[in-house]
């Protein structure tokens, strides 16, 4: 295998791997798990030619640990998994957030809980992506809805992780991950890539967790003369552990504000269908593909429907969703779980617009009829 060019018929997982490589990823550590293993396979084949390293760690806990280590040593790094592996990764995900380590974790969601249905899709890790790791923390999670987006959103994930010094999650699903579609692969040299800020001060003045004006500390790497002290204990700007009153509040506040003060750089949504609608669908990932089809089907029944598609799940697009709620008669949240994103939609529902759930929990791409039933319910 070598990098394909131009228009390709490609599986979502492959597109994700190429997105990572084109974004500059040069380290992959992972543990195979259906339906994500193809991502590992592409990396195993391709990374050495780019001077990169592929390693299969003994478990997912070791995998996310290794990508954090490699990133602190200066390499863009990532891993891919599914539900059971994502659960194992939670503790170290918190380490990555706390130590502000750029890296990407791809979760190709499948039916859970536990072993569930390994080869069948779900979108039931949404809340876990937000709160799976213990403690107060922000997170960024993106939701690709096509093979082309598996490529572009992976690149975006790397860019966001470098810009904000935070692990970024790709919330994919089995449908998008293992479906083949045509995609256009651009010349990698044409891509706009973001690199972590380097220190501008001399080594003796460097404090690894001293933030800039945008609350993100410039990042040195292990091996630099600027000494890095990365700790999972509460720490101050020196990186060393610090138990003094006020340090914890200061650190947690900065970590949160670092993301939430800059959501305009992070949040991406798509508006599909007519501007004015009786019913607005809110959806993401594979479910949103069915929603686009349903917009046309609803029109045939005389119901005016549009779609607000979330490309960013976390931070939740409060403003965009609140606005959509305010402009429509009713909302149907279509997702492949028992109702996770819908809780967030309700949270920002200042206009008390009726909100319905179209829940796809049959271990398959959500059928249009499930969404249509909710739409008919909404206009009753």
């Amino acid at each position, binding site marked *: 295998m070598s990098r394909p060019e131009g228009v390709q018929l490609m599986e979502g997982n492959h597109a994700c791997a190429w997105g990572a490589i084109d974004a500059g990823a040069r380290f992959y550590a992972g543990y195979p798990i259906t339906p994500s293993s193809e991502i590992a396979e592409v990396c195993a084949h391709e990374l050495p030619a780019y001077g990169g390293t592929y390693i299969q760690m003994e478990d997912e806990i070791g995998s996310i640990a290794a990508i954090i*280590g490699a990133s602190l040593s200066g390499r863009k790094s990532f891993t891919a998994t599914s539900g059971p592996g994502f659960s194992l990764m939670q503790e170290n995900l918190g380490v990555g957030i706390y130590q502000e380590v750029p890296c990407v974790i791809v979760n190709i969601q499948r039916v859970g809980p536990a072993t569930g249905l390994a080869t069948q899709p779900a979108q039931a890790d949404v809340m876990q992506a937000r709160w799976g790791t213990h403690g107060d923390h922000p997170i960024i999670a993106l939701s690709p809805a096509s093979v082309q987006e598996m490529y572009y959103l992976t690149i975006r994930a790397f860019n966001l992780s470098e810009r904000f010094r935070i692990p970024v999650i790709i919330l994919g699903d089995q449908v998008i991950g293992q479906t083949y579609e045509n995609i256009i692969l651009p010349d990698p040299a044409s891509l706009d890539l973001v690199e972590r800020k380097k220190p501008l001060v001399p080594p003796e003045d460097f404090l690894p967790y001293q933030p800039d004006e945008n609350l993100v500390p410039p990042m040195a790497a292990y091996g630099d003369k600027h000494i890095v002290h990365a700790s*999972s204990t509460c720490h101050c700007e020196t990186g060393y552990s610090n138990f003094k009153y006020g340090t914890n509040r200061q650190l947690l506040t900065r970590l949160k504000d670092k993301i939430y003060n800059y959501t305009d750089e992070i949040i991406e949504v798509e508006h599909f269908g007519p501007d004015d609608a009786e019913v607005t669908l809110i959806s993401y990932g594979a479910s949103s593909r069915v929603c686009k089809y349903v917009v046309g089907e609803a029109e045939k029944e005389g119901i005016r429907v549009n779609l607000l598609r979330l490309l960013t799940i976390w931070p939740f697009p409060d403003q965009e969703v609140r606005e959509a709620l305010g402009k429509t008669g009713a909302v149907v949240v279509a997702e492949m779980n028992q109702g996770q994103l819908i809780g967030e939609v309700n949270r920002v529902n200042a206009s008390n617009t009726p909100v319905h759930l179209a829940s796809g929990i049959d271990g398959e791409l959500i059928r249009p009829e499930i969404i249509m039933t909710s739409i008919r319910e909404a206009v009753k």
Partner: protein
Amino acid sequence: MAVKLSYREYFKEDALPLMWCSGCGNGILLRAITDSLADLQIPPHQVVVSTGIGCWGKADDYMKTHAFHGSHGRALAFGTGIKLGNPDLHVIALMGDGDALAIGGNHFIHSARRNIDITAVVSNNFNYGMTGGQYSPTTPLSSKTTTSPIGVAEPAFDVCGLSEQCGANYVARTTAYHVTQMKRMITAAIQKKGFSVVEVLNTCPTHFGRRNIAGDPVSVMQYLKDITVNKSRYEKMDEEEKAKYLVTGELVNKDRPDFLSVYRELNPAASETGRGESK
């Protein structure tokens, strides 16, 4: 003319006094490690200590080299990424007996098997000290601890035997008493390419010591001398006699190719040094 490095280049003197109990040997290990680095004249910015959780895991507070302090049991996993991210680094994993052999056991055996070029210094004080003295996988059978008030029902791991069986290139055992031997072993372990394990039997006067030996540090240090015997004497003992001791000395010293050497041989394009430049 370059100034000769001393342990002070690596050790954070302004962080003194150490947080550990009176008679805890962790400070002795720190001195041996920083002296070794100075002897080897390795620039501090080429060293990363990767520590776990527990008393020995807090050693990073006292280091001026690069440092990583992560989650419990994962010092070797994070360390693997640190090393592969920049193979020019000297990565030294500092783990207690629980961090390395209980929760970290899986990473320990795989690090040895794949022979990743990391130096592991395991401080074995026979219990979980930081959390109040519970038993660990290295607590001797029948010992009294806070979670084995009438005696531990499990035998202890042979840390060095395990390391050897899993394929580590360098395996050595010493005690906090044997400081000269300790420094020699740590120096050899740092220089060795591949996975190196130095197990240092250590004192915990506050918990394991107080409950099983005596409460004063000297008695606990004396215990370490009493339960160990050097390799040359040990080899002459019969099985019955051997069972009473832990053998100290350099137990394994070989040169099986480390993980990255094998990986590069199979993948010639993979980066030689540095951080992997893009095509």
